């Protein structure tokens, strides 16, 4: 069992934020009505891996888990002030690293006419593309949650948002860094070596306490939605290096978090049935400098087959100046990859949806295939089925090490 927020320093900065928030709250709470709302979800998830595990410590076929994510919300001054608290916990039947908790959000927001102050632990998303999120760097990935990397850990921040005629400017101060979560030795969907959560190094002498800063401008001009961002601080992606195997200890991966500077732009043009999307970044760390982009489109057909069903077709291409990842060297998994997808929205009472995606590396023979289907049952239940198939013939490719991890996942969530 493990709780992600277990370091003393982190606890202190969380406490500091909570105290600040408390002071602000007690000042502005007087003589106004507080509205309270509780909601959330509880979910049961069952995974089934089709093949035997590659490594003996790994679970064999079946993995069950249970998660809970309540959301508590208070607002006062007609919604100008609000407090949001979203804790999260998952219990996993096999992978001790996947049994984990997090504070997704614990934030106070004050909204004025042309500015907003957001204080606490929050989640912030940047970008426009679907298959890879290059520009999005504020939150750390909660890697054990799911294979797609869409789940994020809460990030402590002070965020001032200024609304101007020429766009919204967001200033971020990010005290306290969160380490990425990785599958444990019993877990599937990992490489041959386990990432060691106790063997972590930082470039900055401040370690996890480095104060990161970020700046973002976003604006809508006619059919165009534009964004530009700058991030300076600890790289959310660790460089992983194998440690030497000895008689006492098995070889594992050491995490090294460098400092980085990243400039990013994102553009979406919404032209009739077409959505054109582009994300581009330049990232500079002490170990490397590179450019990367994700670009593509989404086209929708409304009411196909003379029904209410909408069909969306997606295509995106990934490019990275580092080229292919080589063993023991830096590189990218998405250096020249093509993704295509189809999304069916049935627009029925149950909000049934089906998404299919296919990703392929154009430089060598590797592919991934996903199907996601979900539907509402009654008023409060959502059932979903996911199938993921992964294949590669290149042993330097992460997908190669995951070749035995094809799986299906069924989940049932109750929303309240």
């Amino acid at each position: 069992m493990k709780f992600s927020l277990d370091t003393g320093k982190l606890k202190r900065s969380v406490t500091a934020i909570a105290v600040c928030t408390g002071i602000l709250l007690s000042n502005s709470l007087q003589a106004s009505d507080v509205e309270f709302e509780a909601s959330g979800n509880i979910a049961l998830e069952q995974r089934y891996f089709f093949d035997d595990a590659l490594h003996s410590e790994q679970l064999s076929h079946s993995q069950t888990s249970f998660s809970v994510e309540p959301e508590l919300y208070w607002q006062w001054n007609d919604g100008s002030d609000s407090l949001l608290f979203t804790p999260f916990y998952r219990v996993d039947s096999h992978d001790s690293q996947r049994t984990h908790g997090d504070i997704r959000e614990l934030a106070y927001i004050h909204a004025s006419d042309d500015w907003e102050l957001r204080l606490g632990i929050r989640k912030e998303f940047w970008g426009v593309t679907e298959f890879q999120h290059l520009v999005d760097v504020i939150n750390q990935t909660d890697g054990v949650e799911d294979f797609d990397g869409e789940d994020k850990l809460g990030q402590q921040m002070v965020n001032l948002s200024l609304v101007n005629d020429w766009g919204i400017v967001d200033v971020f101060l990010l005290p306290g860094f969160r380490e990425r979560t990785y599958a444990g030795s019993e877990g599937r969907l990992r490489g041959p070596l386990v990432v060691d959560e106790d063997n972590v190094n930082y470039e900055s002498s401040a370690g996890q306490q480095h104060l990161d800063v970020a700046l973002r401008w976003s604006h809508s001009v006619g059919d165009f939605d534009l964004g530009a961002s700058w991030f300076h601080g600890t790289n959310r992606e660790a460089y992983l290096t194998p440690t030497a195997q000895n008689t006492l200890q098995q070889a594992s991966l050491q995490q090294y978090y460098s400092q980085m500077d990243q400039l990013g732009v994102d553009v979406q043009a919404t032209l009739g049935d077409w959505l054109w999307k582009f994300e581009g970044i330049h990232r500079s760390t002490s170990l490397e400098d590179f450019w990367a982009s994700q670009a593509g489109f989404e086209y929708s057909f409304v009411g196909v087959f003379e029904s209410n069903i909408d069909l969306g077709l997606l295509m995106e291409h990934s490019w990275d100046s580092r080229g292919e990842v080589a063993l023991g060297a830096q590189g990218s998994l998405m250096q020249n990859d093509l993704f295509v997808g189809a999304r069916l929205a049935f627009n029925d009472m149950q909000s049934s949806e089906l998404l299919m995606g296919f990703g392929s590396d154009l430089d060598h023979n590797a592919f991934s295939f996903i199907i996601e289907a979900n539907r509402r049952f009654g008023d409060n239940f959502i059932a979903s089925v996911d199938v993921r198939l992964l294949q590669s013939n290149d042993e330097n490719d992460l997908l190669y090490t995951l070749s035995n991890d094809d799986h299906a996942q069924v989940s049932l969530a109750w929303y309240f």
Partner: protein
Amino acid sequence: MLTKKILLSAVIMVSALSLTLVSNASFALSAEEQKGSDISVEAKKRDLGWQDSTADMQMLLRNKQGQESIREIKMKSLEVDNDGDKSLTIFNKPRDVKGTAFLSFSHPVDADDQWLFLPALKRVKRISSRNKSGPFMGSEFAFEDLSSFEVEKYSYKYLGVEEVNGLTNFKVEQYPVDENSGYTRRIVWLDTLEYRINKIDFYDRKNSLLKTLTFSDYKQYLAKHWRADKQEMINHQNGKSTELKWSNYDFKTGLTDSDFNRNSLKRAR
């Protein structure tokens, strides 16, 4: 050179002519078309000046077998002079979409600007507004049935006077200008006293009767603006229906442009 000049002046003349046609539309309209347009202009005019409004909406979806499903939505709207209205739609039920919010800047003729906020990912997505004919939240209301009425969205024809629910009504046929509309025409009944819409018949792309919407329990706000507390949409082709109930109507609450941007979309409740 000379032919080019002549061509050019011809083009200018033609465009000048078409401008006159647009600005003085009565020139080309028959008496029925003119009257149909006048009634719609008057209906819009009588409701002008509400500035902004907030309201709660409950949707009751019913299928052929009588199974029901509820949607709960909060709406905030801002009247915009010389353009379409701005609106913020916030979903509360079903619970799995709670916190989802939808921001729309509507335009009389041009495509609307629309953004969707997805709370699980904290992501704001600009979406295509071409899907007008699709169902709203699985209901029998299409997106276009819920968007604000703008005179420029239709051309008109007056069909006469008819009695509906004991009131004398104008009967006006409306033809959508937008080719993405799911309808060939709508027939609208408005009472001759207050210009309130009492009933609408919708005809699909094949011109057969698709749906009927009836309005009831009208209330007047600020001694001017009439709003129906109840709207019932019946789909004649699939046997499904959707009942819409409005409550907590409030006008001139002091909403401004700053309540209708990306930031307000993200924290909408």
